[in-house]
């Protein structure tokens, strides 16, 4: 009876449960602070989504555990940093158009550069270890060391300060609720990327083939589609998303440093494990859970902030070992 009820109202019950969990921190937080924390959590979640979605797509279609994703993220941040350095006048200009232009140029440059790096990585390194997770972990970990050392060679070993485009910095005060401008931009950017990915996956033939490939790669090949070309393309897109995340996160955290990928890669894996490997929607939901819970707990119980996401991951793994969403969604 209860099982039938749950099946029938599965979606509604899940939404209600999520709503209750989302509102739960209100018991210990003032509403205005709660709104500020929620926006911070959503922004952090969207930034994590940019990193995690690449990991998830690459695993979903290619069955590849890409530990070099963090290094690609760091490369994206550094390419963005270089564009900002070259066009510092535009970054510091009091013009929204120039600020926006330099930000877009940094993102495009980072995505293109890192997508090319991704293609090289897939063709030269990853292709040799398809189907062997242990080798994938070892070889992409090795690639991480090489990529991070290359960052040190090209940009130096020290931390660098990332400048925020002038109109992106500062806050809005909306009825005594402090809202950071850049956090709103992050939420908008993450939503846009999610929308574009969903549009491609659901509405285009290429997307349909990719979703089919997540389910059965052999069958997609037997239908006349070059799965290896698809793999390279998906790896490049995943790398590009990592780069986008790198640029956005470096502006958020105001710095770039060679090892920055490792920190966020850990978050990205937590996100995809919670959301379900291979699911883009799962990555979004997982990232929002991680972002929101981190911000609420950091305010309420600061010492527990670092562990809360691991705790959530463990609980979800115990209840649903494959994550919240199925692959291909």
């Amino acid at each position, binding site marked *: 009876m209860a099982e039938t009820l749950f099946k029938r109202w599965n979606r509604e019950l899940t939404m209600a449960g999520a709503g209750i969990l989302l509102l739960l921190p209100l018991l210990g937080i003032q509403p205005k602070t709660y709104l500020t924390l929620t926006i911070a959590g959503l922004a952090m979640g969207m930034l994590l989504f940019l990193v995690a979605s690449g990991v998830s797509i690459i695993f979903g279609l290619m069955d590849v555990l890409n530990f070099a994703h963090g290094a690609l993220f760091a490369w994206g941040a550094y390419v963005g940093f270089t564009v900002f350095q070259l066009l510092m006048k535009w970054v510091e200009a009091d013009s929204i158009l120039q600020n926006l232009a330099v930000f877009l140029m940094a993102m495009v440059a980072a995505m293109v550069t890192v997508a090319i790096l991704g293609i090289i990585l897939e063709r030269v390194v990853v292709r040799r270890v398809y189907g062997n997770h242990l080798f994938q972990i070892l070889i992409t970990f090795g690639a991480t060391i090489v990529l991070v050392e290359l960052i040190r060679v090209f940009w130096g070993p020290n931390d660098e300060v990332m400048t925020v485009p002038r109109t992106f910095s500062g806050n809005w005060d909306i009825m005594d609720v402090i809202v950071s401008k850049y956090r709103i931009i992050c939420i908008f950017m993450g939503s846009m990327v999610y929308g574009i990915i969903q549009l491609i996956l659901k509405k285009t*033939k290429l997307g*349909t083939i990719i979703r*089919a490939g997540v389910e*059965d790669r052999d069958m997609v090949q*037997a*239908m*006349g*589609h070059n799965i290896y070309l698809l793999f390279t393309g998906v790896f490049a897109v995943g790398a590009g998303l990592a780069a986008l995340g790198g640029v956005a996160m470096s502006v958020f955290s105001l710095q770039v440093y060679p090892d920055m990928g490792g920190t966020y890669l850990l978050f990205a894996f937590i996100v995809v494990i919670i959301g379900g490997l291979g699911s883009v929607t799962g990555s979004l939901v997982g990232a929002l859970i991680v972002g929101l819970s981190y911000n609420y707990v950091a305010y309420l119980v600061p010492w527990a902030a670092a562990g809360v996401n691991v705790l959530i991951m463990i609980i979800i793994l115990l209840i649903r070992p494959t994550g919240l969403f199925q692959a291909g969604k």
Partner: protein
Amino acid sequence: MNETILKVEDVHTYIERHHILQGVSFDAKADAVTVLIGRNGAGKSTALKTVMGLLPASKGKITYKGKEIQKNKPYQIARMGIGFVPEHMGIFAELTVEENMRVAMLVENDATARRLERVLGMFAALRKFWKSKAGNLSGGQKQMLAIGRAIVNDTSLLLIDEPSKGLAPIIVDAVIEAINQIKERSVVVLVEQNFHMASSVGDDFFIFDDGMVVHSGRVEELTQNEELQSRYLGISKGVTSNG
């Protein structure tokens, strides 16, 4: 004499360290349905996967329309006009019936649209459940979708692996009817354990045993040879097999 479309000569295939096909040879002629029969584990499905390029042939030659294909990749083989329906049907469960068909269409032009109409005419259930998730279809409907996908392109050779497996007898009859229609346009190579189905649609047969072809001939000869049926197919003498 019919032209040979597919010729498999002395093919050896390994799955990991297991030597599955140990020098298999068979061929498929135009205007005929070739049936590969034999007990479980005899190597029939492996033979189809090897032809399709999904498993590499370590030795031997596979010729399709006079061209060697054993070194080609599966997608290249499919683009030559070879359709494949695997044993597990290979349905994309999370995709709709429409999306499954679209993934299968290599080009979307008038000719493909006509073939799609023919498929939907042959399998009415697919039209009915066009927007439904393929994972929600019944076993028989999934088999129809799997076959429909394989013939929506300009397929001149169709490889079908055990289409009757797990289906109710009435659905098996529908599949037999479909294969009889398909064989008018494409050469069919069928792996089948259901002797009723094999004898209903087949013209030529090859019996597989322990990774080798041990007998071949015309299907009507096999239906009369109870000794052969008993020894290699496990059908008791004097029993009329209906699956």
